[in-house]
C-alpha cells in the first residue's frame, strides 16, 4: 500500500500520525511541546477540567502547537449529562469540536461506563461534535456507538495508567474486524511494544499518556512510541505470513514426488 493510501481519516480530517497523546501526569507542562515534537503526534487530548483560561502560565492550551488537533476529554464526568455539559463547555472555551467522551463512575479502576457513553455520544454527535468515545471493548456497545454517530471507537487495552498492555486483545481484535470505524486503542499501553502490537492487529491508532508522561525521559519515550506505532502499522499493511504450530522444513521429504 502506498503512503498516500494509508492515511487515517477521522471526521473528514487526514491525520499524518497514528499516535495520539495525552497531556496529564507530566512533571512540568513545559515538556509537553517537546514531547509533541518528538512523538510527531497530531491529535492531543487534555482534560477540560484542567484547562485554566484565566491563567496565562498554567493554561495547557499554550503548550500545544497550533497545527495540532485538540481533543478535549470529559474526564471527571460521572454520567452522560455531565459529559455533555463538559463537551459544550469545551466548545465554548474555544477547544474546537472534537471531543473524547470519558464517562467514569468507578474511581477505583477508572473503568468507563459504556451505557452512559453511548447516550452522551448520541447527543453530542447530533450537535455536530466529532465524537471519540472511550469504552470497555464490547462488540454490542461498539455497534451502538456507531449508530450513535461516533467518529471512531476507543477501547481500552487495560485500565487507565496500569501500563499492562493489551489485556483485552481478543475483544479489540473483534472490534477491528467488525466495526467499520477507526479503532483507537486507548489506556493501558505501557511500552512501545504494546503500541506496536495494537497496530499489528489492525488498530487505526493508539492513544498514550501515562507511559510517556511518567517516563524518566518523556521526550525520548515519545519518539520511541512514534517509531513503534509506525513499525506496527507497516507490519500490518505488509500482511503477516501465516502462523503455524509446527515447523515447516525448507527441504521437504516428499519433494522427490514432484520431480
Amino acid at each position: 500500500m502506498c503512503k498516500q493510501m494509508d492515511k487515517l481519516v477521522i471526521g473528514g480530517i487526514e491525520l499524518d500520525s497514528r499516535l495520539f497523546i495525552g497531556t496529564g501526569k507530566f512533571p512540568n507542562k513545559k515538556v509537553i511541546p517537546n514531547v509533541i515534537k518528538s512523538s510527531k503526534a497530531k491529535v492531543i487530548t487534555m482534560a477540560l477540567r484542567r484547562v485554566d483560561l484565566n491563567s496565562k502560565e498554567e493554561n495547557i492550551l499554550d503548550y500545544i502547537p497550533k497545527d495540532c488537533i485538540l481533543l478535549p476529554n470529559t474526564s471527571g464526568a460521572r454520567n452522560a449529562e455531565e459529559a455533555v455539559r463538559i463537551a459544550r463547555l469545551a466548545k465554548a472555551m474555544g477547544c474546537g469540536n472534537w471531543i473524547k467522551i470519558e464517562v467514569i463512575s468507578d474511581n477505583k479502576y477508572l473503568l468507563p461506563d459504556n451505557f452512559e457513553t453511548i447516550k452522551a455520544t448520541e447527543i453530542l454527535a447530533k450537535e455536530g461534535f466529532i465524537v471519540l468515545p472511550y469504552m470497555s471493548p464490547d462488540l454490542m456497545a461498539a455497534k451502538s456507538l456507531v449508530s450513535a454517530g461516533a467518529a471512531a471507537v476507543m477501547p481500552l487495552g487495560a485500565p487507565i495508567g496500569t501500563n499492562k498492555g493489551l489485556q483485552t486483545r481478543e475483544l479489540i481484535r473483534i472490534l477491528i474486524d467488525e466495526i467499520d470505524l477507526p479503532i483507537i486503542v486507548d489506556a493501558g499501553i505501557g511500552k512501545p511494544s504494546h503500541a506496536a502490537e495494537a497496530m499489528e492487529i489492525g488498530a487505526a491508532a493508539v492513544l498514550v499518556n501515562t507511559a510517556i508522561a511518567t517516563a524518566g525521559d518523556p521526550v525520548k519515550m515519545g519518539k520511541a512510541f512514534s517509531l513503534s506505532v509506525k513499525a506496527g502499522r507497516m507490519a500490518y499493511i505488509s500482511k503477516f505470513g501465516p502462523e503455524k504450530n509446527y515447523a515447516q522444513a525448507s527441504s521437504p521429504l516428499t519433494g522427490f514426488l514432484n520431480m
Partner: protein
Amino acid sequence: MSFYNEYLKLRNFDFTNFFRKTTKSDVLKVINKGSLDKYDFLTLLSHAAQSLLEEMAQKSHRLTVQNFGKTMLLYTPMYIANHCVNKCSYCGFNVTNNIIRKKLTLEEIEEEAKVISSTGLRHILILTGESNKETPVSYIVDAIKVIRKYFDAISIEIYPLTENEYKKVVDAGAESLTIYQEVYDEKIYDKVHIAGPKKNYKFRLDAPERGCKAKMRGINIGSLLGLNDWRKEAFFTGLHAEYLQNKYSDTEISVSLPRLRPHAGSFNDIYTVNDKDLVQIMLAIRLFLPRIGINISTRENQYLRDNLIPLGVTKMSAGVSTEVGGHSSKTKSDSQFEISDKRSVEEIRRVLLARGYQPVFKDWMHI
C-alpha cells in the same frame, strides 16, 4: 448499612497481639503483594514495618506516580466564621475558650475570595465552626454562591449535615466535603467531645456517606492524630476510606493526616505521633488504597512537607491563614490552630517545580 457496623466488628480486635506477632518478613510479603486486604494494611502499620519504611516508600512513590503522575493539587482553606457551640477539648474554637469570635459578611467573603484568587488558586476549602445560629446552612449556601464566582472548585469543612442539607450545598456549587471523625475510638470520642452537638459520634461517622449520597464529587476524611494510638486510628481511617470507595465508586475519596497542633485550649493527653509515624501511616494507606487522594496541610513544617512530596501526597494547601478573614481583613480574630508552613502559593509552586512536580491549580470546574 453504615461504617459503624464495620467499626463494631473490629472495635475489640486484639491489636496488641496482632502487632506482637507481626514479623519483618510478614511486612515484606505484604509490600510485594498486588492488592491488599485489611490485615495486610494493619501489617504495614505494625511496629515491625518501621524498619521497612524505605521499601514501602519506593512502592508508594511508584503507585502514586502511576495513578496521579508527578502532579500536586494546590488549594487553600478560607475561614469564614469561628463561632462554635461545641466543647471539644483539643480545639481552639471551643465554646468555652475566650477567643475573638468573628463571622464574615457576604461582602467580606467576596473580598477574601478576591484576594485569595489573585494568588492563582482555583480550589478553595471553606471552613466554619459549628453554630446553627451564627452559621446555618443558609449562610453556607449564600457564601458558596458568592465564592463560586472566583473559584472553580469549592470544598466545605463545616459541621455534619443531613443528606438533604448536603444536597443544598451541592446545588449551590460545593463539589467536595472534608469531614474528620477526629477519633474513631468511640470512648475517647465521648471523652474529648465534652458537650455540644458534636458529641453525636454516629451522626458524624455517617456524614461522609451522606455526602456521597448527596453526590458530592469528593470526600476527604481523617482522624486527628494524637487523640488516640495512631496505629488504630490510621487503621480505621483506611477502612473507612475503603468502605466509601467500594460503596460509592463515583466519589473520589481522599484522606488527610492531621496531627494535633498547638491551639488555645486545655487538651494535654496527647499520644505522640512523630514524623516517622506520620510517614508510616501515609505509606501504609497508599499501598492499601493506590487510587486514594492524600492531603498534607500546613500543620506540617516546610522541611517535612517538601520531603513528603514524592512519598504519596496528591494535595497540598498553600498560602494558608487559619484566621477568619485572614487574607483580607484588617480586624483580627483568633485562629483554630497555629500553622507551621507559612509559605505563599508562589513559593510552594516553585518548590514543586524544582522537585519535578507539576503544581495543579485547577482540576475541576462548575459544569
